[in-house]
């Protein structure tokens, strides 16, 4: 048994706590990828010159960063996994970054986009989906500027992810001589926006941008409906990523005409040269994982694809070897999630998020793209 | 202030909200004396003890113990200075054994005092040293309070209704014990409702009513005082 006949991918997920919803989605996406390749006899691993089955070793961190730290350690030191994939989001990824670096283990980061993770000195990190949060709002800023929106209100939740969006947006707007008429940071745990709505309304804005996590977006949009406060333009992030969840909670009429960053499956990339295109994914995924398709399932699947390409390309199974392999195909890969391209720190820069508007169509919603 | 006074209380007032429990109490205790403090229920005897022993702070007035002002002295300090007390509702360290109860007092207050064994047999608990004190009955607990006070080698001992709930025989034993302590030079303030108990122990009593002193003198004179009879003793002398 010199050459292994299976490869172990270690990852974490959260079955409870504040990140559970997103974490489960992206975990399901990764599992779907593994199931898909295993049905075809596994992944071709260049270093072994053969196809090898994929096994996923996953622990539940319950959304706790402290628990996650121990579990990442467990995956590296006890389970000695071949490939390490982080849990959803910045908080649960943050603890993995130094641990992976310390143990010289390459970390495939699915969605942890906190800008501070990516440094030149750490070669053990690759972000597979989403650009780092600092470049997301470019399209939004461009759109607002182009529309000559002078009175913009920006509300954000005080966490890494939303704050860097906020900072970027505000600086882009300022560069175009637009000073927001209202800015405010609220705790990520906020679930009641009624009072804040009134405060924003008092500044009489033409557009209101709310950067939050899904729960915040839901609560914010709900309170707009319930309060009868009306703003001409409203932007939130997560309808574009988790439309089904949002629709369930806010309702079609509550979401109609709001702006968002559409992502797959709302956004379809046509030049896919690796893995399933969106249409196939949408057909197969729900029957395998019994979970509706949303952006995070796509992101989880996409992480699997990047790993697959890495294994197919890398002549060795050492962690740094794999990292070099990632560099070698960076920029050439087009998946269901768009172009995969990383910079020297391992951060994703290939994906760009457009701005779209949700339009009521029949009983559901469709996207109208406004700005690429 | 005469140096003969172990304790002097001058014009002490204590209120609880709008209720005045002590109103200008003044008295003193001489060295080696047993002073009886009697009065109807709710007249403020226990409150007076609480103020002296540092459990409550007086609103007004002055307190001196062994010539030192003790108005703001915390209870723990007072026990080091040689004042200690028992409680009307006994409060031993219920989870600790009798021995530990006595030991604690003895180690923390380094004054000349009886040895542990001696105290234990003095209060009649020599056979229960390793019993958890919560298991003792209420009289035994009161005696343990006394024992703990003795372990600190007090010069002044405040005894609050030690006799309540004892039968006549036990009362006799207790009286005899307290007399022995007095012979050793320990001054005492004794609060008690049983007149026979007070009569056997004290030469001088203070009768309180509604937070005020209404009489000072011997018990025999007190028994003849009209007001004392009216508010406290009632018809027959017990």
């Amino acid at each position, binding site marked *: 048994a010199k050459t292994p006949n299976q490869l172990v991918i270690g990852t974490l997920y959260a079955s409870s706590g504040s990140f559970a919803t997103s974490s489960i989605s992206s975990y399901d996406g990764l599992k779907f990828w593994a199931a898909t390749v295993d049905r075809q006899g596994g992944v071709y691993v260049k270093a072994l010159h053969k196809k090898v089955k994929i096994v996923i070793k996953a622990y539940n961190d319950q959304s706790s960063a402290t628990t996650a730290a121990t579990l990442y350690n467990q995956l590296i030191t006890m389970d000695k996994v071949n490939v390490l994939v982080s849990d959803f989001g910045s908080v649960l990824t*943050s603890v993995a970054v130094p641990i992976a670096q310390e143990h010289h283990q390459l970390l495939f980061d699915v969605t942890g986009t906190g800008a501070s993770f990516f440094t030149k000195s750490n070669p053990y990190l690759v972000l597979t989906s989403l650009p780092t949060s600092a470049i997301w709002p470019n399209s939004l800023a461009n759109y607002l500027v182009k529309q000559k929106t002078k009175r913009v209100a920006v509300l954000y939740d*005080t966490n890494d992810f939303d704050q860097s969006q906020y900072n970027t947006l505000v600086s882009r707007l300022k560069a175009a001589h637009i000073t927001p008429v209202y800015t405010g940071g609220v*705790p990520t745990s906020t679930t009641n926006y009624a009072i804040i709505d009134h405060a924003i309304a008092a500044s009489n804005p033409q557009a209101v941008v709310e950067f939050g996590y899904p729960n915040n977006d839901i609560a914010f949009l709900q309170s707009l409906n319930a309060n009868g406060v009306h703003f001409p333009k409203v932007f939130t992030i997560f309808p574009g990523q988790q439309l089904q969840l949002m629709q369930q909670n806010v309702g079609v009429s509550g979401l109609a005409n709001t702006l968002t960053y559409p992502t797959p499956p709302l956004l379809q990339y046509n030049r896919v040269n690796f893995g399933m295109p969106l249409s196939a994914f949408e057909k197969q995924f729900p029957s395998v994982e019994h979970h509706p398709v949303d952006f995070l399932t796509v992101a989880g699947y996409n992480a699997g694809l990047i790993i697959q390409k890495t294994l197919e390309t890398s002549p060795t199974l050492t962690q740094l070897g794999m990292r070099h392999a990632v560099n070698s195909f960076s920029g050439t890969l087009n998946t269901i999630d768009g172009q995969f391209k990383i910079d020297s720190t391992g951060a994703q820069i290939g994906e760009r998020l457009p701005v779209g508007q949700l339009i009521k169509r029949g009983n559901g919603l469709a996207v109208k793209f406004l700005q690429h | 202030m005469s140096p003969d006074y172990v304790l002097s209380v001058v014009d002490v007032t204590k209120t609880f909200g709008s209720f005045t429990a002590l109103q200008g109490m003044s008295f003193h205790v001489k060295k080696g004396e047993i002073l009886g403090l009697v009065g109807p229920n709710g007249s403020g005897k226990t409150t007076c003890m609480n103020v002296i*022993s540092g459990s409550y702070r007086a609103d007004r007035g002055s307190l001196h113990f062994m010539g030192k002002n003790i108005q703001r002295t915390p209870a723990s300090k007072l026990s080091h200075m040689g004042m200690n007390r028992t409680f009307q509702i006994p409060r031993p360290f219920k*989870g600790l054994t009798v021995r530990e109860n006595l030991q604690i007092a003895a180690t*923390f207050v380094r004054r000349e005092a009886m040895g542990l064994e001696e105290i234990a047999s003095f209060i009649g608990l020599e056979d229960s040293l390793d019993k958890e004190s919560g298991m003792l009955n209420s009289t035994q607990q009161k005696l343990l309070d006394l024992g703990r006070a003795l372990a600190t080698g007090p010069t002044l001992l405040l005894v609050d209704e030690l006799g309540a709930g004892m039968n006549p025989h036990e009362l006799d034993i207790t009286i005899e014990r307290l007399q022995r302590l007095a012979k050793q030079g320990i001054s005492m303030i004794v609060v008690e409702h049983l007149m026979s108990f007070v009569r056997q122990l004290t030469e001088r009593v203070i009768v309180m009513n509604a937070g005020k002193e209404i009489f000072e003198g011997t018990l025999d004179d007190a028994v003849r005082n009209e007001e004392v009879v009216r508010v406290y003793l009632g018809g027959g002398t017990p």
Partner: protein
Amino acid sequence: MRNRLKAGSVLLVTLLLFAVGTHIYSNENMWFQGMVYLALAQGINILYGFTGYLPFGYVGFFGTGAYAASLYMTDFHTQPIVAILGGGATALIVGLLLSPLLRLSGAYFSIGSLAASQMIYYTVSNPALQAVTNGPYGMNLEAFYNPTASYAVMLVILALTLFTTAYLRYSRTGLALRATREDAVSAAMAGIPVVRMRIMAWLLSALIAGLVGGTFAWHISVFYPNTVFDLNVSIFAIVFTLFGGGASLLGPIIGMFVLYGLYNWIGISAPQYFQLIYGVLIVMLVLFLPNGIMSLFRKKGYDVP
């Protein structure tokens, strides 16, 4: 003498286990967290076991230590070890400021300390203080990251903590604390400076949590405010202490090994049911073994350290 021998050997075995543990089971983070919880449990033990004050907000000191140590490292570029001492000192000062809490008793104190820790948390994590604490965005000590050295420092802190509990278990100071716990009024009459003793226990446990927090921060090196102010940290430490039995040296050790072991064992193999099993276990413990495992030994007449 025999007591000292027993306590000494418990102490030694425990420390030795942590010293060589990573060679037995190489997930060193698990061992590290074990030490963290054990030290915290002993900190709770010093306060709750000996004085009866159950600090729900104990994590406040832990978080304070973590943040203070990190800020000393990042802003003043102090040596990690000095920074950790600084973290302990800061927690001590916070403890001193919060000492009026000791005027409360029972559930009031528990909840009051919880409120205090939440206050610290919401202050530290407030975006308005981003310039000082980096607000909700957490700390990054990558430049100082050194799991081996931080592991060793944690071992030393654990040793000091265990030694302190062992001392309290057998000294007259410990006896005085227990007397205070039973009846404060009587304790005062027995000559015990009740307030001073309580404050001492409170500060001691604050110091321990601060040191542990600082070391934890160094070891984990990237963290967010809710990681180091997570209420579960208090609760775990409390449950470990109660499970083993308070006012003893061995109790929290047993509690930590059994429960944290279980936590990792179930947590790793059957995660979806972990929380359920844990909850059931706690309920059973309280109902059927309210004085902890140690009470089993005591009932049999063994005097355990």
